[in-house]
């Protein structure tokens, strides 16, 4: 994440006919998406629509059919797609002696974290934390971070090696209103200033309305996708969210 490049709009990520079957159950079928760099793509849908599974399938964490291509549109060359991922939660209990440095170095550096702090790794980590104004958290224990702080640390970890695609899995749980504002502004700045595409699972339709470039309404398959206006005014959207069942809490009474 060193260079700040204006999004060129020339790369794109194509997901072709992606399907996931777990056991006997078909979780996702025939998902085709076209993700442009520099765009914020919000995935919405009722609970159990397969949003998290979609993220895990793109990551390669669950086996799937179909394929994912990454194209540099200028010369049509297929490159290796680098994906940054922000998990929903971490397995850390109270009192776990893992500092922010330890965690980030564990994923990013070969220098064994139990022996010494590598100066190079530290510099890289700090640089990336500073993007999200989280440099002061470097030596704090991960288990003592607040929801918002952890979110920023995980974000800086996800963008450390300049991903082409950033995946965020319901990142807004356990954060207050101010934190949410800050979070969405950060994501917005990220996709404006860096050469990456964002796929974000969101439960908060107000923020989706405000920030998303492209909305994907998911229910086993892509029910509707397009601009915010197009999706929010569609019949499918009304059916998914106005029926009462599966209505996201934040959208209740506010409708669209």
């Amino acid at each position, binding site marked *: 994440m060193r260079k700040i490049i204006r999004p060129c709009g020339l790369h794109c990520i194509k997901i072709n006919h992606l399907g996931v079957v777990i056991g006997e159950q078909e979780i996702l079928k025939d998902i085709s998406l076209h993700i442009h760099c520099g765009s914020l793509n919000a995935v919405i849908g009722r609970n159990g629509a397969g949003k998290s599974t979609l993220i*895990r399938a793109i*990551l*390669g*964490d669950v086996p799937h059919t179909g394929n994912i291509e990454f194209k540099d549109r200028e010369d049509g060359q297929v490159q290796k797609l680098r*994906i940054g*991922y922000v*998990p929903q*939660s*971490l*397995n*850390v209990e109270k*009192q*776990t*002696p*893992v*500092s922010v*440095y*330890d*965690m980030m*170095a*564990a*994923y990013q*550096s*070969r*220098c*064994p*974290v*139990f*022996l*010494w*702090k590598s100066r190079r790794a530290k510099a890289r980590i700090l640089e990336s934390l500073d993007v999200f104004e989280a440099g002061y958290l470097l*030596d704090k*224990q*991960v288990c003592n971070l607040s929801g918002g702080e952890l979110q920023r640390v995980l974000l800086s970890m996800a963008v450390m090696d300049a991903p082409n695609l950033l995946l965020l899995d319901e990142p807004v749980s356990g954060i207050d209103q101010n934190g949410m504002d800050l979070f969405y502004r950060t994501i917005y700045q990220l996709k404006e200033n860096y050469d990456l595409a964002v796929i974000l699972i969101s439960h908060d339709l107000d923020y989706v309305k405000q920030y998303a470039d492209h909305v994907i309404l998911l229910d086993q398959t892509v029910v509707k996708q397009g601009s915010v206006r197009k999706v929010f005014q569609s019949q499918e959207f009304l059916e998914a969210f106005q029926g009462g069942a599966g209505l996201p809490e934040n959208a209740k009474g506010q409708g669209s």
Partner: protein
Amino acid sequence: MGIFSWLEYDFMKYAFLAVLIITPLFGIMGTMIVNRKMAFFSDALGHSALTGIAIGVVFGMEDTSLSMCVFAIAFALLLNQISSKVASSTDTVISVFSSCSIALGLAILSKGGNFSKYSSILVGDILSITPSEILSLVFVFCITLLFWVIGLNKLLAVSLNQTLARSRHIPVSFIENFFAVLTALIVMVSIKWVGILIINALLILPAASSRNIACNMREYHFFSVVFSVFSGVMGLIVSYYVNVATGPTIVIIASIIYFTTYLWGRKYNL
């Protein structure tokens, strides 16, 4: 009589050497066993030693250490596999397999009323260790150190979040299985000297004490090793003068350290 008079006997010298190898090993290993919430897993592994011996006896093996190690490794891999597949919680699965294997081991070993022959393994006896057995401890110690230098980062990454680790191309199941096998190996090579009943205490207590006061991985490992070596050496000396079994003495000292650090940690860290 000098202060090192307890080192006059050869068996004390060997025991001292063995303690100097086993305790740092346990201190290091314990950190990740506690971090990964595998305390129960390593306990079950210790108990599976009985079954390993029983299998060796059934096949008429002279030296049951081999059958013990092979069985423990198979057991560890099986447990890992099953706990990742089965939906019910891990501790239930481990408990089922552990009790099943203990019962099997006890049944076979007690055939013909011979169990007392094997009961020494329950408590263990570090004073009976021989130089060649110390060598095998050194060997396992080197493997562990090597894995720690190369693989600890990855193991920590896997423990924090599997999906995230996988997205960074870390071979998750290989790392997890390797760690389980290593745990099995360490438990098996040291179980004769430490004893089934208390081996888990030695693995868990130093790391748990260290957790009370450490803030990062470096402190965590440092304190864990220091506590482990300290309680090992002190336990050996005290047991020599008081004339009680060494293993339990070590565990008592380690427990005292745990409670002290617990109180200290509550006072300063919360």
